[in-house]
């Protein structure tokens, strides 16, 4: 049904926890928290989208899924793909966004065995909640900067994405500390995960900043973060259409 995922060095897969990394009771607790979190998100998403919830969230989730198939270069030879947490939080808001990311994670676990079934709860907590809401918090804190336009918005999106990715990896370290296999090596796991995800976060931040900028330039009314901000009429010079997309 779904096309094969591209075979590049997908760095972000390191974030998808597998079964057995966290013991059974801890996994159960995080599953329960994830279910409660999703229930809250569904409730809030309905307020954002009313009866449009299902088609809009479905299409945005499909977008996140497609985006994760696009590889971008990080260093020569290594490429990563977007996680998209900060991106959807800024574009469609944290409630709809968390539902979309959680669904994508569930489909990845069921279809590609990417992330374990018992670890799905922790994965949803890390990426759909911790990462996404940390990004959203940063974005809201910097909203005034973002509303100033171009550079401000890009800087906000970059910081939101970078801090969100690092925050999600801290969630991993926290879960590992509670129910992980090793204890004395916590420092090593911490520096490995946070260091790796700081690198991923830079890539995620740059792509998120450019993408949000591109959307804001065409349909600023669709950027959730900028809702309610007065939109000034802009005079734009006639520019040659860019040939970057078909």
């Amino acid at each position, binding site marked *: 049904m779904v096309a094969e995922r591209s075979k590049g060095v997908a760095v972000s897969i390191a974030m998808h926890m597998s079964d057995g990394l966290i013991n059974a009771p801890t996994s159960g607790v995080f599953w329960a928290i994830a279910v409660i979190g999703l229930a809250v998100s569904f409730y809030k998403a309905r307020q954002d989208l009313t009866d449009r919830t299902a088609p809009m969230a479905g299409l945005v989730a499909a977008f996140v*899924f*497609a985006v994760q*198939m696009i590889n971008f270069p990080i260093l020569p030879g290594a490429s990563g793909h977007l996680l998209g947490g900060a991106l959807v939080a800024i*574009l469609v808001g944290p409630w709809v966004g968390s539902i979309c990311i959680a669904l994508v994670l569930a489909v990845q676990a069921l279809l590609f065995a990417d992330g374990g*079934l018992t670890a799905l709860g922790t994965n949803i907590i890390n990426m759909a909640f911790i990462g996404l809401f940390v990004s959203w918090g940063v974005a809201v804190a910097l909203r005034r900067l973002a509303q100033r336009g171009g550079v401000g918005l890009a800087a906000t999106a970059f910081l939101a994405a970078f801090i969100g990715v690092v925050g999600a990896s801290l969630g991993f370290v926290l879960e590992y500390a509670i129910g992980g296999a*090793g204890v004395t090596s916590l420092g090593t796991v911490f520096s490995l995960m946070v260091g790796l995800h700081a690198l991923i976060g830079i890539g995620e931040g740059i*792509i998120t900043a450019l993408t949000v900028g591109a959307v804001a330039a065409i349909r600023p009314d669709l950027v959730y973060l900028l809702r309610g901000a007065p939109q000034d009429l802009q005079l734009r010079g006639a520019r040659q259409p860019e040939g970057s997309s078909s």
Partner: protein
Amino acid sequence: MHRLPPEVKVVAAFLGVVCVVAVPREAFAVFGGYFLLLVAVWALARIPLGWIARRSLIELPFVVLAVLLPFAEGGARVEWLGLSLSAEGLLAGWNILIKGTLGVLTSLTLAATTPLRDMLLGMQRLHAPAILTTIATLMLRYIDVIAGEARRMRLARISRGHDPRFLWQAGATARGVGALFLRSYERGERVHLAMLSRGWTGAMPQLSDARTAPRDWIYGLTFVAAALLLTVTGFVMT
């Protein structure tokens, strides 16, 4: 196995992985038992080994962590081939490796026997919230459309000479992602209107009326019972 109702398979796979994760890591023989159980399921369902093997590579990033632990953990050391390894770390690494592998293999068995559309049907029969199954259904219907658009945009970029090798060249990719978002979002608005014009009431119609026979549940849960037996054996052994 392929014809078993999807909700039975989803529940059985999930409970099976829970059994694997719960077992004490020192019960080495028990993990062999789980593996044999999975092999038996593959034989019954006629899943080619190569299909499973190729997709199980997804696990690799965690193998790295599992290999790292014997070096990083403290405590009693074990000398092996001139390397000083931590006994605790070896056990922890083994724990991650074997449970992760068995988990991946179980998920892949589920994926091999159950199309995603059927899994949604299973979720619906398991009384998952309607909004969840509805969003998931629409997502799955449009994944191919959106992914196709992403592929065409990539092709268009490449045919215009796009070849980013460094992150600071990724601007065109990002603008493509932005355009993809706009297209997806606006398509969502159109889909919503199209659904309304066809009498959308806010809930998906039941995809199938078929009821699951108790016989199917018993068949599916036999495998879970075997896994549970192994888990109990593991606790008794250690």
